[in-house]
């Protein structure tokens, strides 16, 4: 039991009459790389929002490190060690990369309530920021305004910011969406080089990318659990091919 980091127990999310996520259960082990796949509207992002608390689950339980966090506020879950990126880039565009990192780093430190103190990095903070920027390959861009970064670099910064606070669970919502092929390679390299003690759950549409990155795949369809398995099994699963990879008929 102790090696299960994240446990979803019959989780449902209902918006009025619509069941966006319906009775999904899964266990993610510590250190695992897990993908959640499924066609558009399968409920992947809604499930993420239930895990991180942006739209809490309306039924079932979300258990993180043995603690029931189903009703916890998003900022409380962040303090427990969850961190996420967003499907649509969600940064502070008028600030520099470094200032974005400062805000990210202080999210979990009492420093955020320093009213009259300096906003410069402390030595410890600088080290953490540089470490996270190095993993995301952005260290040369620290002084650049975020709105002047390329889209790919903004996605890399998203990762750096989520890594900064040393999370134990990293949730990546379509980290490669909208990227050029060369930028995808960078992002997948970044994901591959994440420290192995961080558990990663990611949503991704690009099957080739996702199946090369993870060791276990969960497939959703219409808000419900459809299948799960190792990447090789998923490739050959006919149910999944029907709902998700159905485009093979093109050939």
């Amino acid at each position, binding site marked *: 039991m102790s090696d299960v980091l994240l446990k979803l127990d019959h989780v449902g999310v209902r918006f009025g009459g619509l069941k966006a996520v319906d009775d999904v259960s899964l266990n993610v082990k510590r250190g695992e790389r897990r993908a959640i796949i499924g066609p558009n509207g399968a409920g992947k992002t809604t499930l993420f929002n239930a895990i991180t608390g942006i739209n809490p689950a309306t039924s079932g339980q979300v258990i993180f490190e043995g603690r029931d966090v189903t009703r916890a506020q998003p900022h409380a879950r*962040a303090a427990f060690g969850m961190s996420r990126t967003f499907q649509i880039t*969600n940064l502070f565009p008028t600030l520099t990369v470094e200032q974005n990192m400062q805000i990210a780093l202080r999210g979990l430190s009492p420093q*955020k309530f320093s009213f009259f103190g300096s906003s410069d990095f402390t030595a410890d903070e600088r080290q953490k920021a540089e470490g996270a920027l190095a993993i995301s390959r952005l260290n040369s861009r620290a002084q650049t305004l975020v709105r002047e970064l390329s889209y790919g670099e903004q996605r890399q910064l998203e990762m750096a910011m989520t890594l900064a606070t040393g999370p134990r669970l990293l949730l990546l919502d379509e980290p490669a969406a909208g990227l050029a092929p060369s930028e995808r390679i960078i992002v997948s390299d970044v994901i591959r080089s994440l420290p192995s003690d961080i558990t990663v759950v990611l949503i991704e549409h690009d099957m080739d990318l996702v199946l090369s990155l993870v060791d276990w795949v969960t497939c959703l369809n219409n808000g419900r659990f459809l299948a799960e398995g190792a990447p090789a099994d998923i490739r050959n699963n006919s149910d999944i091919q029907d709902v998700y990879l159905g485009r093979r008929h093109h050939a």
Partner: protein
Amino acid sequence: MSMLGSLSASNLDSPRSRKGLLLSLALGALALVILPMILPGYQISIVTQILIFALLAMSIDVLAGYAGRTSLGHGAIFGLSTYVAIYWSTTMGGHIWVGLLLGIVAATILAAIFAILAIRTSGVYFLLLTLALGMIVWGVCQRWTSVTGGENGMRGAGRPAFLIDHAHFYFAVLLIIIPVTWSLWRLVHSPFGWALRGIRDSESRMRSLGYNVQLHLFIAFVLSGFYAGIAGALYAVFNDFVSPSTVQLSLSVSGLLMAITGGIGTLLGSFVGAAAITSLENIVSIFTERWPSVLGLTFIFIMIFAPEGIVGRVQLLLARKHQQS
């Protein structure tokens, strides 16, 4: 109105602009010290008024420019402080200094009440909610005649003897405004101030980074009310009279216009905005009684040609010039 926040130029932290900032600060400070020596008494009191309104405008800017929450309730917070200070020193016969402190405390408590109700909202809802809360305060001041004097207002007990001279009072206000402004400057450049900018740009991101957004907004609102309360208390000594017009919506609007004219999200722009609007008011009212119309037109003009405000505009031009060279 949340677009106001995104216009702010937040490049004040690079070394080159810091140099320019120090230079303009030095010039501004010099002007503030020399002005009362060359101006006649009445005009000194106008400059005093500019300082007081600049503080009100800065308190609004902390929320509007940094946290992206535009308040129309700060006139009421300011005016409550004025009411309490004057009530204490006249009706209660208390000491004026205690009255000022009580005024600031009352303003801070009122801001906390406003904050509890308003921080759940943003954009135009925040604007309307703070406006409505301010109107309630105005209504109470208007109707609670036995305490507030209703429409007639209340006359103060007079300034202490050493502050009666216009120049003396001016320097006393300046001595308070300078450290208060410095503390506001530290506030918006502290980690807390950066968190407010983060909330302005993306609340969902801040939540998932571990920030309790509502708590931050609550604290920001209360602190902002505290500063508006200081301005209101100074105004009690300055004006020595208070009536419902001091808590009226038009004061909130003027304060906001000053912050916008100077440059929302620039903090010190509030001094420029307060000077521009107050001077314009004094000049225009020599020629016409239609000051509000002129103010309205001025505001439209600013929104079209320099929505980032005077200081914001200058910063942008300087940044562009620097890029070209």
